[in-house]
């Protein structure tokens, strides 16, 4: 019998991988903690060494961090990959999302976009990342009940204890972690159709919660594991998500739940790294 609760990311991070284990890392790069931070250096190496990206990043938004990003990506750089570089050149999706409020700052835009989803029009003028969620934390997010209906209440939807001390808005995965603390919260995820409470948008404001169904053993955990899998595809270095995925997959009884991590280092979801089966070239082997 495996003890799923004891699975941890006992990891020496891979070369070039800085683990965003504290809020200060997020603060340093001015992002909201989606876990991309730890990949920057690694991605840079990939870019320099023959780059999948330099010719494709304008389309995919997957560009190199730092100055390389600006040089090679120009206006094609998506907010997600701006890293610590000056974001002034990064425009596309961020500006569109932020409705011209944040044309000069991708990083703020990224946070703003998130906050806007929660805050409605609470803080359209100043920096969302620094103002909106701080406001919510000051209003009690750190210690008390989450504001359920953010659009109406003008406060952020920070769940209890979810606001980091620096006032950055909580990342989805922290919400997920919060949801996964107790078993009934995992069941809530499958009933609502999403693990991430920020993505729960019931039609016409009606709750789609299917309370009546009886779940089978492991079903809620399997759903949570699948949600985390989708999340890890685009956030391969998010340590909390990695650990939660392992726990959920383990509890759901799924085999090989730890097989998709770098050898000896569970710090990166590497399922998307290897060539895809339709890409193998037998003639080269």
């Amino acid at each position, binding site marked *: 019998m495996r003890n799923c609760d004891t699975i941890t990311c006992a990891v020496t991070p891979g070369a070039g991988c800085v683990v965003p284990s504290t809020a200060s890392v997020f603060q340093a790069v001015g992002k909201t903690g989606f876990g991309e931070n730890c990949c920057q250096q690694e991605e840079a190496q990939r870019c320099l060494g023959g780059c*999948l990206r330099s010719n*494709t990043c304008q*389309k*995919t938004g*997957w560009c190199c961090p730092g100055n390389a990003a600006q040089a090679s990506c120009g206006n094609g750089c998506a907010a997600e990959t701006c890293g610590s570089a000056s974001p002034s050149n990064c425009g596309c999706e961020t500006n569109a999302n932020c409705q011209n409020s944040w044309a000069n700052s991708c990083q703020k835009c990224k946070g703003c976009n998130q906050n806007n989803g929660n805050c409605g029009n609470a803080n359209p003028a100043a920096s969302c990342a620094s103002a909106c969620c701080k406001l919510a934390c000051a209003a009690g997010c750190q210690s008390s009940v989450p504001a359920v209906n953010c659009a109406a209440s003008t406060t952020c939807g920070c769940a209890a204890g979810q606001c980091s001390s620096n006032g950055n808005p909580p990342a989805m995965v922290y919400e997920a972690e919060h949801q996964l603390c107790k078993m009934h919260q995992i069941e809530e995820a*499958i009933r609502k159709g999403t693990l991430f409470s920020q993505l729960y948008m019931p*039609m016409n404001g009606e709750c789609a919660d299917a309370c009546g*169904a*009886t*779940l*089978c053993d492991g*079903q809620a955990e*399997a*759903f949570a594991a*699948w949600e985390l*899998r*989708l999340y890890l*595809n*685009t956030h*391969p270095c998010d340590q909390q998500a990695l650990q939660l995925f392992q726990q959920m997959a383990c509890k759901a009884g799924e085999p090989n739940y730890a097989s998709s991590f770098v050898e000896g280092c569970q710090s990166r979801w590497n*399922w*998307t*790294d290897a060539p*895809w089966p*339709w890409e193998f070239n037998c003639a080269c082997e």
Partner: protein
Amino acid sequence: MFVYEKKLQYPVRITRPDPRMATAIISQYGGPDGEMAASLRYLSQRFSMNDPKVKGLLTDIGVEELGHLEIVGAMVYQLTRGMCESDLKKGGFDAYFTDHTLGVYPQSAAGHPFTTAYIGVKGDPITDLHEDLAAEGARL
């Protein structure tokens, strides 16, 4: 390759037949924006997608749509289980029954058989992702 797990992603337990509901829900199975179209759309688009992250997403979402397909199929099956003849006619299910009896056939609510003309696979990442947005928007 694929491995089947003998369970639904979400349980379906319908105890009362409702053929009229079945004629609507069948569209989510094999209609223009149904799960069959969704799964084939993503699983086909991923071959020419150029970003590994998006390849992974299309693969995983396409597989999940297959799971949804099974859920919807189970709904149609259970909605038409144990009907009597008068249920068929009252529920407007007699036309479907004529062609498929109680089989779960991929078709739209209007009875059009499933066709891959519902989906787009163009080999260009932006074009395909736009198609995905349109398809997901239709299902919201």
